[in-house]
């Protein structure tokens, strides 16, 4: 279950300590994906194998270094900075259509998260308040949830679209234990990990298809990418909105109509950055199927049965 050593640490409360008895972890006889044993520091799968990602200059083959991502920390020029205007040498989440992954090792390893040094920097991070609505666009593609919004209740992601007959959604995911696969109703992957009682991710259908993140287990999620697939495999004329809702009623909309006709598209990515979920509109038509989408986004730890179904 929750590993307190991975939780974001705070150094601003020296007078308060919190101790927690680790809960018994549920067994994972056949987890929701492939679990790898690494002989080097684990990191999110990078897009370096994809020719599409050549423009991203963040080197992910390096073990974690001070250049790892943190939105609050001043970073050397070669690293990701969520606040700084994009430069060729840095990965910028605010720039549309960049497919690079983030190096989250600092946080996954449980090192203390640096504290905010400049309130002004923090203020420039796009947020969504309770009961507020924000629309992600090509110019403003990201919003960062607070640690409360990233850790309370469930995050609901729903495809509100009239093309319900043909549009199916799911999510590529990577957990902090390196498990990587999909949740996808159409291929029978209703939860991840696939033990029935306490999944981190759930795919279900109410009025529309949904992907839910159980935020009690937010510390186990490294990243996910929500995709849409035409059930007919024929190019789809996209319409409607991917709607993300927080426990407090904050809403983040990703309009889909700007997508060109295609049968597979990556719609939204979510990265867990030091306990804060960074949501990013991708709106990215994929030339090929889900397998190609996974490759383009660096989910290269998934083995595929066909172009839609992972081998778990």
């Amino acid at each position: 279950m929750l590993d307190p050593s991975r939780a974001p640490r705070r150094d601003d409360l020296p007078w308060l300590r919190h101790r927690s008895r680790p809960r018994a972890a549920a067994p994972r006889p056949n987890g929701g994906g492939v679990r790898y044993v690494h002989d080097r520091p684990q990191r999110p799968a990078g897009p370096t194998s994809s020719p599409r990602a050549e423009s991203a200059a963040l080197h992910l083959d390096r073990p974690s270094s001070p250049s790892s991502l943190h939105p609050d920390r001043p970073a050397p020029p070669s690293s990701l900075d969520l606040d700084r205007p994009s430069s060729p040498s840095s990965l910028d989440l605010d720039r549309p259509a960049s497919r690079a992954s983030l190096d989250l090792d600092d946080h996954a390893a449980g090192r203390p998260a640096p504290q905010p040094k400049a309130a002004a920097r923090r203020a420039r991070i796009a947020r969504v308040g309770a009961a507020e609505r924000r629309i992600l666009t090509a110019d403003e593609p990201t919003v960062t949830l607070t640690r409360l919004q990233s850790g309370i209740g469930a995050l609901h992601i729903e495809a509100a679209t009239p093309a319900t007959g043909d549009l199916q959604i799911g999510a590529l995911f990577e957990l902090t234990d390196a498990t990587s696969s999909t949740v996808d109703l159409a291929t029978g992957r209703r939860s991840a990990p696939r033990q029935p009682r306490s999944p981190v991710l759930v795919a279900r259908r109410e009025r529309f298809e949904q992907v839910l993140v159980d935020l009690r287990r937010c510390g186990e999620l490294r990243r996910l990418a929500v995709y849409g697939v035409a059930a007919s495999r024929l190019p789809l004329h996209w319409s409607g909105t991917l709607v993300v809702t927080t426990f407090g009623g904050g809403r983040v909309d990703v309009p889909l109509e700007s997508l060109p006709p295609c049968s597979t598209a990556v719609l939204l990515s979510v990265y867990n950055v030091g306990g804060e979920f960074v949501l990013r509109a991708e709106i990215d038509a994929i030339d090929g199927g889900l397998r190609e989408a996974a490759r383009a986004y660096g989910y290269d730890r998934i083995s595929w049965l066909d172009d839609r179904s992972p081998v778990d």
Partner: protein
Amino acid sequence: MPVAQLKRGANVALTREIPGLTGLVLGVHWDAGRETVLDQNLVFAAVLCDSRGRVRSDADFVFFNQLSSPELSVQQLERALGGDDEQIEIDLRGVPPEIDRVVAVLYVNDGPGARRTLGQLRSLTVRLLNPADNTELIRSEDLAPALREETALVLGEVYRHDGGWKFRVIGDGYAKGIAGIAADYGMPL
């Protein structure tokens, strides 16, 4: 000071009773029986309040996704926790003057699965320890029998009074879960 069992609403003047008291451990213990899903979805948190009884920002909600935790070995953790499931330790000398009270809460996370309630708990107690010698100072009555459909509970609070510190067992439940607590304490969700 002998171990006292406090009912809901009862308070004790800690620093008047124990003048040398410089720190406190507030521990909570629950028994969820075979309800493992309930157990896994319980969240213990501390709400840091100003003199108006409100948080200053969302950073004043200290829970598993923004911890203030020391690095402890398993043995150290076991020794510190004793019979508790969760604890907060407060260095009373270090509490910033603008923090007037530290409120301990327990809630059931409202995730994608079937809804659980605190009424399913078999027992639920809070206790105070003196970290200087690990002695138990106070234990609450069992708060579980009075619980029904509640999904969040204010367990108790450590608060300033006349230049010292007091502790009160509260035991107020919320049917709206952490959203109800957030509304009362001004936590932005």
